[in-house]
């Protein structure tokens, strides 16, 4: 590997490798080698070399993922895309950009905002997560409510297959010939191929934005307001909820202006033409008041708006001050069932003795219950996992899904059978095997291992490769 990439681009010492055994999830797995390629060809050569030595390969962006997608579950070589971070081309006329996978999400928006454009997917980690990682996980964010998740903004991909071959799928236009392979690869969690170049669609910034903070005495009133906004066909650009307990923690840390004595707040944003934004904001305000909002504030200026969003986007960091670790879930429920879902989550928390915080994308029903725990306390850790699984099960029972934007990874793979039958998983596994027949790429993810699916078939150690 060192002769292939140069010693500077290879890590093989334990003290270096342990930095890469974590991501944003509660899981842990250490790679045997970490490499930093600069080009697609280098990625291809690394993959071919790993194949020769029969060691698994896993791709990694910034490691901000929350489901263990970027962890080397089977050991082996971790390809970190941090040094493939060039914006290769920007075509402002046709709203396209071509980027390497290691480009940081927000950096792309910064590069194109002079032309009134931006990259729409906006995960809370936008300042650090990479576009390659966004593609692998089909990342979302607060504004995907109106603009769609990453898949809606990817036109074409360059891929390195598990055998090292380089292939392009999709087209610059976005429409495909034959099967929509691009649609398949976005969100496949690095289990089918490594993404080495992405053609993204850029969006035009709206001419007017209005940010509202609706303040409620109880979380039930706030969730009823979400149900009502959705049912009336109002689509805000974003609709986020923070419960009272969470917002007090956030407020202590960020001072965003959330009222400490409230039961829940909704952070809402409307965008579009000036004429439309006024009407939408008025309609939302009316719904919130009907649902017994104590107050509806409109951000006066850019500064106040940024502060409110800072409170939302840094909330998980704020919660980190309360407990050594937290487990963020990602279940989705039909929006009409939001009040029931939150009640059930509260009940499950009480049953296991946890206070479960809620800060989430209410507008698209994507919950993020947070279980605070101490990982050094084995009993508490196990209880946290059990509570989490019960919450996920509740989401599925309400007609929802295991994960809205974080991915299945090695965190929820055993729960896949809640949503999918044996026939469903068998077909997904055949698609997996068609691309990644030896599971040499990101083994042990998505598929339940207990069912004999997606087993880690490559086991040799990587030590010899480091010549």
């Amino acid at each position, binding site marked *: 590997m060192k002769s292939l990439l140069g010693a500077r681009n290879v890590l093989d010492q334990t003290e270096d490798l342990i930095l890469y055994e974590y991501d944003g999830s509660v899981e842990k797995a250490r790679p045997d080698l970490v490499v930093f390629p600069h080009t697609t060809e280098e990625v291809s050569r690394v993959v071919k070399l790993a194949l020769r030595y029969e060691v698994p390969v896993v791709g990694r962006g910034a490691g901000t993922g929350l489901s263990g997608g970027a962890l080397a579950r089977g050991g082996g070589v971790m390809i970190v895309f941090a040094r493939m971070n060039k914006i290769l081309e920007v075509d402002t*006329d*046709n709203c396209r950009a071509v980027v390497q996978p290691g480009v940081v999400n927000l950096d792309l928006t910064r590069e194109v905002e002079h032309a*009134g454009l931006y990259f729409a997917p906006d995960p809370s980690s936008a300042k650090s997560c990479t576009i390659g990682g966004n593609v692998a*996980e*089909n990342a*979302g964010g607060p504004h995907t409510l109106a603009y769609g*998740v990453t*898949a809606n903004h990817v036109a074409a991909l360059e891929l390195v297959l598990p055998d090292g071959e380089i*292939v*392009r799928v999709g087209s*610059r*236009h*976005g*429409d*495909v*010939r*034959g*099967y*929509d*392979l691009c*649609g*398949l690869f976005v*969100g*496949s969690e690095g289990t089918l191929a490594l993404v080495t170049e992405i053609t993204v669609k850029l969006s035009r910034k709206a*001419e007017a934005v209005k940010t509202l903070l609706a303040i409620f005495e109880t979380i039930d009133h706030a969730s009823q307001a979400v149900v009502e906004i*959705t049912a009336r*066909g109002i689509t805000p650009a974003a609709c986020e909820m923070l419960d009272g307990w969470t917002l007090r923690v956030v407020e202590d840390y960020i001072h965003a202006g959330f009222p400490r004595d409230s039961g829940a707040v909704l952070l809402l944003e409307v965008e*579009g*033409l000036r*004429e*439309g934004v006024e*009407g939408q904001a008025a309609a939302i305000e009316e719904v919130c008041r009907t649902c017994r909002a104590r107050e509806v504030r409109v951000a006066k200026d850019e500064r106040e708006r940024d502060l409110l969003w800072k409170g939302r986007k840094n909330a998980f960091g704020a919660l980190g001050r309360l407990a050594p670790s937290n487990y963020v879930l990602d279940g*989705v*429920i*039909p*929006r*009409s069932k939001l009040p029931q879902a939150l009640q059930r989550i509260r009940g499950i928390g009480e049953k296991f003795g946890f206070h479960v915080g809620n800060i989430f994308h209410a507008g*698209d*029903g*994507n919950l993020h219950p947070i279980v605070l725990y101490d990982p050094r306390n084995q009993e508490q850790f196990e209880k946290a996992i059990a509570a989490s699984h019960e919450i996920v099960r509740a989401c599925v029972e309400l*007609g*929802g*899904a295991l*994960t*809205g*934007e974080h*991915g*299945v990874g090695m965190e*929820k793979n055993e729960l*896949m059978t809640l*949503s*999918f039958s044996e*026939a*469903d998983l068998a*077909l*997904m596994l*055949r*698609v*997996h095997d*068609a691309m990644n027949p030896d599971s040499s790429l990101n083994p042990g993810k998505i598929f339940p291992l207990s069912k004999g699916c997606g087993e880690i078939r490559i086991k040799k150690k990587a030590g010899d490769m480091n010549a």
Partner: protein
Amino acid sequence: MTATANLAARLGGAVGAEHMIAAEEELAAYAVDGFVPGAVVRPTSAEGAVEAVRFAVAEKLGLLPLGSRSKCEIGMAPSRYDVALDMTGVREIAHYDAGDLTLSVDAGMPLRELEIFLKRHGQFLPLAVPCFESTTAGGVIASGIDSALRMQYGTARDFLIGAEFVDGTGQLCKSGGRVVKNVTGYDLHKLLIGSLGTLGAITRVNFRTFPLPATSGGHVASFANCEGALSYKRSVEKAGLPLGNLEVLSPEVSRMIRAILQKCEASVPGALERKEWHVYSSYEGNEPVVQRISRDLERIAREAGAAHSEILEPAADDSLGGMLREAYEWLRWAGPATVICRLALPEVTPGILTKLSGLMDGELVRGAFLVRAMGTVYFAAVAEEVTEAAAVAFAKIALGAKWVAAANNGHASLLHAPTEVKSKLALAPESEKEFAFQQRIKLAFDPSSVFAPGRIVGGL
């Protein structure tokens, strides 16, 4: 007993004789590119479809799942077609959560019925697709035809949230779900879009639905040449107005539309009387938004030097919008013989349209262009007579369109051509590597190649 009657009898034994369509003349209605199936089965449940597929797998037959058959000529002729699986009998609304704006509907449900149903709840599905009166929810997904509203709502890929289908091993499978945001497992349902029946028999599709807009508007700007029209289109795109549709009509397209509207005594936009290039915009929202967009379009048209600019009356807007949604349908019947290609380009320039026009030089055909938002071009060539010379010219034009698209970083697909033209086209996949990749997908879904083999260029 003839081979056909024998097949029908055995299949009837497997799926129930009451689900068989037996009369020879009825079989002819299921012909695809001149190939008539030996048997037609029309189940009334997903389980019935499962039985039909299992029978076909066991008997090593070729099976083609079909909806209303309005667009089954998209794609190449099937290389084996023994059984038609008519899904129009599977047509229930399985699940609708108006408060969540999500819908799960059987494959055979006609879009028109769905529209009426959703309208009662103040919602709609933004699939403004041709043959709207007959087309089914499953068929529109399999056909991959694009929607006239894609500029605002995207394509089916952006709001198809899950699907159920019978795979090539005869198992009922699903992917996705019924919620608007979901990354659980592989998005196999996206592969079904445009799969032309080659991956599975779709039994159910799940969609995100959208609120009906309060009101809508339409505008036409007219230009002496395609340079003016395309440059105006570019300015409108850059203005960032939330348009539902933005389409450039060549003079020939306008002439065809005018003729059809006059024939059915529908309202004709005054602008279409002019033998010019027209650019149509449609938009929606509340009254102030619609008025604002109309004003902006008038201004941009003026600045772009439009020869004529017109805010459409609602009746004229409806008829023109409806005609553009149906473009594929009437372009097919625009003359005794027609070829329609759809080009997907990063950017549409006057030079590209000139090159495409050039393909028709010296041939007895006339061409029509419809440039849809986002670089999609419908290019139709129409011949007044079905002759061997016309077939040769068509084949040349279809291949030429592919080259022009490829040379401009795009690609072209053949939406319609007389059967004799298709057989003249030895179309090869544009990228061997990508094709090999597609083949792997086909094998994973359909290991024994029971589904409509040969429909996708290259022979999938």
